[in-house]
């Protein structure tokens, strides 16, 4: 009947973080990379909420995660607009196809 401690939650958030990083590094689709970023941010936000329950961080943790959610939404909006713009110019969203810039 013991309650779940902080460590299982932290482990889940570590899984989120790692999956996000792997996703960011392996995906060639621009939007796929953005999904990886969302996973990483989500892992961080789960960390904050976990700490808000189990450490003296208290309510601050929840405030942090609220701001993270809002900022992530803003970032996603701009990223998506840029991705669409890229698509309009290149007719693909494959990051590797962008090869105008090199040297």
């Amino acid at each position, binding site marked *: 009947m013991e309650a779940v401690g902080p460590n299982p939650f932290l482990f889940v958030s570590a899984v989120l973080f790692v999956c996000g990083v792997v996703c*960011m590094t392996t995906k060639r689709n621009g939007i796929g990379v953005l999904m990886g970023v969302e996973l990483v941010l989500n892992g961080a936000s789960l960390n904050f909420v976990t700490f808000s329950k189990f450490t003296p961080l208290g309510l601050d943790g929840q405030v942090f995660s609220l701001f993270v959610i809002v*900022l992530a939404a803003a970032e996603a909006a701009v990223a998506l607009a840029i991705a669409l*713009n890229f698509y309009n110019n290149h007719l693909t969203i494959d990051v590797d196809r962008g090869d105008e810039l090199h040297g």
Partner: protein
Amino acid sequence: MNDIGSLVVRLLDETTKTSVGLFAPELVLSGTIVLMLAFRVLPGLNRIPTQWVALLGAFGSFALALCQFDRLVTGEIPPTSFFTGMLMFDQLGTFFRMFLSLFLILTITLTVLTGIPDRDDAADFYTLLIGSTIGMMIMASANHLLMMFMGVEMTSVPSYAMVGFLKGRKKSSEAALKYVVYGAGAAGVMLYGISLLAGLTGTGSMPDMAQRLGMIVSQNAGIGDATVRTILLAGLMVLVGLAFKLSIFPFHFWCPDAFEGAAAEVAGFLSVASKAGAFALLVRFGLSFTSTSAAVSEVGFSFGIGLGVLAAATATFGNLSAYGQTNIKRMLAYSTIAHAGYMLMAVSALLVLAHGKQVGLDTQGEARRCIEGLIYYLFVYLFMNLGAFAIVSLIRNQIFSEEIEDYNGLATQCPVLCFGMLLCVFSLVGLPPMGGFWAKLVIFSAVFKATAVHWVMWGVLGAGAINTVFSLFYYIRILKAMYIKSRPAGARSVRYDLFPGGVFVLLICLPILGLGILPQGFTDKFHNIADALLTQIGR
């Protein structure tokens, strides 16, 4: 009156009487954004050119920041944290706010001269520009981990959009996509680090964090302790985010692409302004690790050594890659990376010197010199780099090219712009009597002092010196093209030179010379800033 009532009264008092006033420069900029957008919508008012509104706002912000800085220096207002500890009002922060609003004025003027946003898009462009500047200002005075992250985000997100501002161009959209993808990733990693730090210390406030890091690590805990390792991991993750903003070695790859794809004005803005904000933040964050606790100081020290190695690598890499470039914006981007390396040496020396007390050296005064050198370098860098980018964009408007070989023989057609480029380049290399010389000198001397604490700093110093010599070779290529090669027949000629572009460039170049010939007044000012910062955190 009950508890919550008196709490509200106290908060209301503090917010309206102190905090809002201290936040005035940012508030003016925020108001400018709203005004610009309102002017565009309202009938009748939409005839007012947006850039004048933006310029007015930037001037207002600069004036307010100047006033505040003045009052801080004279001691009329004591340094304090405001908005219940969210931001810090001190000489360092206020100097950077002043610096950034000055830079905003210069950038807006430049865009007016080169006409990069057309009439329709002006409001959008200046909104992004000012929004990004507000983010940097917040970054420079952040006193709380949340404000630190918000500052980074508020700086980055509008700048992603700015890089992609020329939206019809393939290069521009590609640059923006690369920038946003890497940038968002770095921000995510940074946030994860912040979450670990906040969880460990149970607070978001950075001074509290510094104090509590000592509390949670027992005196003799080494790297084997899980807590110390977590602190190290978290610190590294935060540094990844900052290193990305600063384009430090393994995280620099976005920089050349983003700069080449973006308009030269935007590239100039990003190269200086985002560095200024990020370095201020890095200094504050780094100082959190210079605790009196031996274990935490050890962590800070290892960060210092690590940053030193990275700084040497960054400078070397930047200079080596710049050598083969044919596009001038790309070359300047690599040179930006190299300069970030030099400036990072100052931070590295700061962290190493701060550890000096632990090994029995009195390095108090030398730590101050690091911050002084960093500020001096940034201040010179503002003018020399903006100058270079301004000349690139002015010439681009005439010859429609940014390749170095198209600059051949330009000196005969536009002597003023080319002379400006000469000054900027000499300063970028670090030749006397330019400002860049003194800047490098102060930083290198600080690194030299740091060699007493650890031998690795000798390597850093050596790398810095060799790089300075090496950088001469590729910078000189620009001058060679301009002054020695002859203009090919049939090449597009440059029609106007002196007015207004030339005047602007000369105005920017004046401080470069001034800072080089009369450095004393400035170094004293910057020394005071460093002094105030270190006294304030009690080191």
